[in-house]
């Protein structure tokens, strides 16, 4: 991280805070629609597509740090590895061209949901006893009440939410990349290349 921040261009220094702001602002938009979505990684995935993996990792790092600071809820910081994994996965996905076709993006979104759920459940289970205070905890309590073991209840609760959220996130980023004006896209090296138009 230190090496990266030592050599960051002004362009990247300007982009990352805005991407983090997008991550946090879209959360409130998702809440308005009453959908079980977080949309808190859209900025991270977008930076992975526009610039690359290292910049996305920095965006994920600052997103989780600032989200923790702004919410005053220290528990969010424990999920930093999940944000970093999302950034790395998105960088790889952009590199191999999954944003070139909507159906490829859809499959990659399901894969990302599986990865995020698989990474977050040990943190939820071992550190917080399966309780993270979010809406998914209600689902965990329901599954527990139905007789599932706590481990499975925590995993399935997270899986349902993450599959939907990460699929919508990747499809949304593709929509943004496709609808970006040509002059704007020309300023970012990966904007057109990621969707196979360069």
């Amino acid at each position, binding site marked *: 991280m230190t090496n990266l921040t030592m050599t960051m261009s*002004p362009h990247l220094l300007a982009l990352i805070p805005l991407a983090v702001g*997008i991550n946090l602002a879209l959360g409130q938009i998702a809440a308005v629609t009453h959908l079980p979505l977080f949309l808190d990684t859209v900025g991270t995935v977008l930076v992975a597509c526009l610039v690359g993996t290292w910049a996305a990792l920095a965006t994920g790092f600052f997103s989780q740090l600032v989200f923790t600071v702004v*919410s005053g809820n220290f528990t969010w910081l424990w999920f930093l590895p999940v944000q970093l994994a999302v950034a790395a996965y998105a960088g790889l996905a952009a590199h191999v061209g999954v944003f070139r076709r909507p159906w490829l993006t859809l499959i990659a979104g399901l894969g990302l949901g599986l990865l995020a759920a698989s990474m977050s459940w040990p943190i939820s289970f071992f550190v917080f006893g399966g309780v993270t205070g979010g809406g998914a905890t209600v689902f965990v309590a329901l599954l527990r009440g139905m007789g599932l073991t706590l481990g499975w209840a925590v995993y399935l609760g997270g899986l349902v939410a993450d599959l939907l959220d990460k699929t919508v996130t990747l499809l949304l980023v593709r929509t943004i990349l496709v609808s970006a004006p040509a002059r704007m896209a020309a300023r970012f090296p990966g904007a057109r290349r990621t969707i196979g138009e360069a």
Partner: protein
Amino acid sequence: MIVEYQAGHGILHRAHPFTNLTLVGSVAVLAFVLPAPGGPLVLGAALVTLAIAAGLVRILLPAAVVVAPFWGFLLLIHGLLGGEPLRALTFGGRIGTMVLGFLMLLVTIHPARLVDALVARRVPFAFAYLLSATLQAVPRLRDRGRQILEAQRCRGLRVRGSLFRRIGAIVPLTVPLVLGALAEVDDRAMALESRGGGRAVRRTPLDPPVDTMADRSARWVMAVGTLVAVLLQVLK
């Protein structure tokens, strides 16, 4: 709920930012290392005492608001459904202690003071800048998100109704926000470049926080104490 810096003159306000950071780091480790459920609860009581002594009584209510849903669900899942109330108490003590410690950190360190302390310790300018610029960008983009929501509603967008209608509402709400933010990047990059923002040279903070002998001693005591507790737990 948004918690932010609150001016004050208590012991934690006067301390060097790194001392408060060390305190929170130690608390986060000790909450898991000390024997449960007694250890985290005693640690929590010690933090409450410190908060009162440091003139931070006003953060106890926000801390309770953050922690209450955790305790409620822990009681439900472990206590009522799982039949393990001690487990609920253990996790509740750990979470409560960590949340309180972190809130004490948030209300006693001004972000600009933390950035000055980081720059004075030769942390790269880019890292310090990203931290402070991000904290400033978040409320601005949230406000813009609210404005876009109101504007789109005025144009007839419905954000309630069937599942498909609500999913369909996401694109007209998010795309303008994201493209608007991307349009800002060039202006900001130019402003940064004109101020030498991308150069890897050392900055000198105008008024860095004073790192006293008491601060340094307190950090050493906390770090060594935490390390000893970890070693004792590992060797047990």
